[in-house]
């Protein structure tokens, strides 16, 4: 650590997040590797280090003795100020070396509100933010992660996108980069060659053309690059790297525990859920594999908590077997097991009771919509009966804090649907009155709503988001309908959701907006400390663009979308069919009951989904 940095760190908040040196970090001799990679997470250390994907890819890349992959996170404002004042470039935590000198800078892009931080981190590293302004091969700036399934808004800044799961894909990209570096290729030659790797999208090889009304006319594909880029998946999860020796931060982070990923994908097909479509088809780890890795990860880290993580954990076949096996090992060691994202059904509740015998922390259910009609529209197959039954079990079991999550502004939503949220909450309350074991302790029911954001690659990708005013009107309606003082109502600010909606279905022209926001001081936009709606609106205006064009417009059935160049395996025609079913209020059975032929099976070598 340089004396300059040492001084800075005595002045900033929570300096331990900027030092590196944690247990299990990987240090190599820079002289003995072919490539140095900075794995950048465009949010704080506490958020980034909680990300399982980061731990997986960090470990996977470092398995190659020729690659040293190090970490880098977005500094908080005080640290950024110090770095800029002292003219210290952004550095990697392991070596402390400036990432601008690395061969590759890889960003993990999980959510749209992190985009401005990507620009800010590049700038702090002394690297030009626009891809076109970076003439040399290195540092190559690439990105992967969920929000890359619409890469267009970030196309001006990123040299290439890795679409889908990175375990193998990233290695193929880096292998090619090694060769290019060794043989002194110009950047353009490398990018063209990289475009031939399945799953790689090189934005400079695709030129969008627009209609007069602002919609996309066509995309000119240059130099023989592939017409569509299909997401990569790992077919056999047990066969790839699993982070049993993940880095253990020396300071508190958001998820300070072992995270055990059971499977990828989800069989449910909730129509609003991007992850549900983007990660198809379902692929699972074997129970034996998970038991073994869980034990290794716990003894290797010293964590006293393990959490099972997947999109819909209770759908894991063999979950009882797994939790029994884990509990048997964990209980004598005083290690606790937690299960997030449970469904409100009997099975899950039984599990919940077994697992969390001691700690009765809050329970969360996400019915998403208040009425059965609207839940059918979004294909959230939870009945009121099942929900109330779960609540009964919870209240009988001594729980007295319950959170209920909903979205406002879902397609076809009426005032009746909004009012149904209040009714449902009242029913939950009377369920507590009838079943509470200890009524003297009281009950706290929290209803939260957020504004629905239509996402690309979902059946609602054509839908308009409701306006901020309309959302607030519905909030008011709901607020006035909630009478009981035992029910608290929280609503998320709609302005962030509007920007998120514009970015998530945006086209390449939004690059100018993102750059304007960043030049105007925008960064860490997922934090209310930093987000400024005004700044975003000014940036849109300056770029001559209207966020409503992207967020609040019902799109034509045949409209060409900026993200159509990316295939996640699920066909657009399937999404259209699902959208139609939504309007008809028809539910679609989950993949285990019946395969509806979404197309994602074609991503598998064996061409058939499990179960």
């Amino acid at each position, binding site marked *: 650590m340089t004396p300059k940095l040492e001084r800075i760190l005595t002045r900033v908040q929570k*300096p331990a997040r900027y030092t*590196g040196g944690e247990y299990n970090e990987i240090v190599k001799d820079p002289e003995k590797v072919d490539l140095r990679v900075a794995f950048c997470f465009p949010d704080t250390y506490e958020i980034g280090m909680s990300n399982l994907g980061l731990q997986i890819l960090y470990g996977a890349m470092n398995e190659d003795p020729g690659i040293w992959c190090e970490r880098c996170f977005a500094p908080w404002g005080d640290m950024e100020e110090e770095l800029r004042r002292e003219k210290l470039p952004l550095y990697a935590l392991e070596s402390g070396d400036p990432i601008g000198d690395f061969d590759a800078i890889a960003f993990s892009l999980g959510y749209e509100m992190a985009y401005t931080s990507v620009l800010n981190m590049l700038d702090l590293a002394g690297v030009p933010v626009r891809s076109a302004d970076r003439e040399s091969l290195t540092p190559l700036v690439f990105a992967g992660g969920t929000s890359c399934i619409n890469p267009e808004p970030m196309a001006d800044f990123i040299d290439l996108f890795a679409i889908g799961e990175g375990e193998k894909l990233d290695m193929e990209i880096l292998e090619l980069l090694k060769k290019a570096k060794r043989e002194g290729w110009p950047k353009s030659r490398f990018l063209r060659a990289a475009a031939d790797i399945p799953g790689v999208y090189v934005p400079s090889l695709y030129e969008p053309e627009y209609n007069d009304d602002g919609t996309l006319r066509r995309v000119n594909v240059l130099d023989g690059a592939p017409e569509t880029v299909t997401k990569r998946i790992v077919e056999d999860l047990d066969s790839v790297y699993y982070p049993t020796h993940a880095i253990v931060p020396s300071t508190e982070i958001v998820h300070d525990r072992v995270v055990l990923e059971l499977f990828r994908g989800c069989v449910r097909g909730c129509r609003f859920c991007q992850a549900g479509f983007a990660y198809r088809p379902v692929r699972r780890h074997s129970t034996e594999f998970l038991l073994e890795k869980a034990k290794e990860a716990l003894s290797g880290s*010293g964590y006293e908590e393990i959490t099972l993580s997947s999109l819909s954990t209770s759908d894991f076949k063999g979950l009882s077997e797994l939790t029994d096996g884990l509990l048997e090992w964990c209980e004598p060691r005083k290690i606790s097991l937690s299960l997030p994202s449970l469904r409100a059904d009997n099975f899950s509740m039984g599990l919940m009771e077994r697992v969390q015998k001691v700690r009765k922390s809050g329970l969360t259910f996400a019915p998403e919509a208040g009425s059965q009609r609207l839940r059918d529209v979004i294909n959230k197959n939870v009945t009121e009966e099942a929900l109330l039954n779960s609540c009964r079990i919870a209240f009988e079991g001594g729980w007295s804090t319950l959170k209920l999550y909903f979205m406002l502004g879902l397609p076809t939503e009426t005032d009746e649907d909004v009012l149904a949220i209040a009714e449902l909450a009242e029913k939950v309350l009377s369920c507590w009155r009838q079943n509470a074991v200890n009524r003297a302790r009281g009950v706290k029911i929290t209803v939260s709503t957020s504004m629905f954001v239509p996402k690309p690659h979902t059946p609602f990708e054509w839908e308009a988001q409701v306006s901020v005013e309309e959302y607030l009107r519905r909030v008011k309606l709901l607020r006035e309908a909630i009478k009981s003082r035992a029910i608290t109502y929280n609503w998320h600010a709609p302005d962030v959701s509007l920007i998120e909606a514009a970015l998530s279905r945006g086209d390449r022209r939004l690059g100018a907006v993102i750059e304007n926001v960043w030049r105007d001081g925008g960064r860490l936009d997922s934090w209310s400390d930093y987000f400024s709606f005004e700044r975003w609106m000014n940036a849109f205006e300056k770029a001559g663009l209207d966020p409503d064009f992207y967020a609040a417009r019902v799109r034509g059935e045949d409209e060409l979308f900026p993200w159509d160049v990316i295939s996640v395996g699920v066909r657009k025609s399937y999404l259209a069919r699902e959208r139609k079913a939504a309007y008809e209020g028809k539910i679609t059975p989950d993949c285990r009951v019946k395969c509806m032929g979404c197309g994602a099976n074609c991503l598998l070598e064996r061409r058939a989904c499990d179960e």
Partner: protein
Amino acid sequence: MSRILFKKEGRAKFISHLDLMRTMQRVFIRSGLAIRHTEGFNPHPYMNFAMPLSVGTESVCELMDFGLLGGAEPEEVPARLNAGCPQGIEILDCYEEKRKFKDIKWLDIEARLFYDYRACPLEALRELYSREQLIIEKRTKRGSAEVDILPLTGGIEIEPGEDGQLLMRSRLSAQDPALSPAQLISAIDQLAPELSPDFTAFRRVEVRDSDLHPFR
């Protein structure tokens, strides 16, 4: 009770006390050494630190007590713990605890004073610290109070350090009442602000009892 003597330096000096407790807890689990837990509804490993160290201060003389269970010998403890430590934390020794932390009287510290824009005011500082009294304002819970810090020190020496810094060695009262290294420097800020260093780095070098023997 068992006691460990450990270092916390380099990058690890930025780990806060709360985070250090969490970290040590995990270091024990990684080592596979069984240790005593507290009783009660929410049992946690029993760990008692002699004197919490402030963020940014290095130390080569930290002490922590814990209850070693299950027949492990104290001699094997340092190596087993060190295998699971983050960079900068190193366990130097482990032994049966024979005296209580309340017997700690003095703390020997080193301060490196950096002057960026001027020559080091060696003589002027020596003069300052050789006054009869050094009365500084100390912030307390009930506002502020004036204290003479000299009786709370067991000598202050200043000499030229490496790279043009000044090296100050001092013996400070460890408890009842304690004098912190930062207060030693705030004497300069308050009484002779023109001599204030641009940056000061602190390091604990030894803990001592009232007879000035190293406390173990």
